[in-house]
């Protein structure tokens, strides 16, 4: 296994172990997404179009992801543990990739519950919507992890992260909703894939500068 892959694996395993022990992030994300869908179910008029419900799904996913992102660097922030990772001889982008992969796992777990819940409360989920969710998750985690690291260093962390993340997440929402409702979802899925590729590369390259003091 390459050194880079080994470092990413060690760091991601660390994040997954921490979450298994602390059970901080995933339960909060699960509770939030289910609660949001329940509230949407009662808030949406019965005469509303099914397309509106698809939009609400993306709101729930986006804010669930935001919840996960605000907790992504909690240990590193509160216990100043980022220093330990920055001292290590691994490439600093490995920290970003490991954190993004862990977050992807947490978001995936939340969506394994959220998507059936959506199907129960609103309408069925087709393959294009699932593909859109999967592609969107990659983009959310790639961009969100860098922004979460940026926000950690700042003062108004809880305010800064949504301010940075939500505008960058709009293309994800456009692509995700489009993939679920359009007659030709392929172009929206292609758009999401392009977004993921571009922002993953930007995030990978810029992480070192984000964490440098």
């Amino acid at each position, binding site marked *: 296994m390459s050194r880079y892959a080994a470092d990413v694996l060690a*760091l991601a395993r660390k994040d997954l172990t921490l979450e298994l022990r602390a059970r901080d992030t995933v339960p909060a994300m699960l509770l939030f997404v289910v609660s949001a869908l329940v509230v949407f179910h009662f808030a949406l008029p019965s005469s509303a179009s099914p397309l509106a419900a698809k939009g609400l799904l993306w709101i729930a996913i986006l804010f669930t992801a935001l919840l996960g992102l605000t907790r992504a660097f909690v*240990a590193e922030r509160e*216990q100043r543990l980022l220093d330990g990772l920055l001292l*290590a001889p691994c490439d600093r982008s490995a920290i970003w990739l490991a954190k993004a992969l862990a977050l992807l796992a947490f978001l995936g777990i939340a969506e394994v519950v959220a998507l059936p819940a959506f199907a129960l409360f609103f309408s069925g989920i087709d393959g294009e919507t699932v593909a859109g969710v999967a592609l969107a998750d990659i983009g959310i985690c790639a961009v969100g992890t860098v922004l979460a690291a940026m926000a950690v260093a700042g003062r108004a962390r809880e305010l800064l992260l949504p301010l940075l993340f939500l505008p960058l997440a709009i293309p994800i929402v456009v692509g995700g909703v489009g993939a679920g409702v359009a007659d030709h979802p392929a172009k929206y899925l292609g758009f999401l894939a392009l977004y993921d590729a571009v922002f993953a590369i930007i995030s990978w390259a810029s992480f070192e500068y984000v964490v440098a003091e």
Partner: protein
Amino acid sequence: MLAVGRRPGVPSRGHGRRGRGRGWLGVIRARGLGRRFGGRRVVSGLDLDVARESFLLVTGPNGSGKTTLLRLLAGLLVPTAGELQVDVDRARIGFLGHDPLLYRELTAVENLDLYGRLYRVPERRERIGMLLERFGLWEARGEHAGSFSRGMLQRLALCRTLLHEPELFLLDEPYNALDAQGAELLDGQLADLRRRGATFVVATHDPARLEPLTTSRLAFA
């Protein structure tokens, strides 16, 4: 070698060996080194040369810049002025700061295993076991670091610092929270590493303790 020219704020890709200046055999060289936080200059105009196998003792009152200097040398901070060259790979630097840099939810062994993997320590498990035993933490190896006392955390942090057999040690108040036995262990460890040719930069409020090992001093005002 971490070399920061007159473009502060641009981090290097990390420490590594590069061609040294003519005749320079040192480990650390700083010229006009400075670091500010907002409008406040914490380190300013510092010239420093640390030779290989030397023991530099850094003293000074609280807030004088000792910790900032160590963080600059470790690459955790980027200088905002001057030049800094550290002719040691990041993999061969051992840093002990005010924070133990240990995950509370991981056990002692898990913490050291994580760092051991990141530093690619050979025979990692054996080395971890040896260090835990040496610092009296073997019995507590399966306990979460969050349950450790401050002194035990400091011992575990010392294990973390020594794990990858650094050649340059940057230690900030290494005797903090150590009881008499722990302090004696550390005395012996430092003396042994000194004999083996390690280079040290140590910030302390107790210089008398390290006087026998010291080859040079830097006093912050």
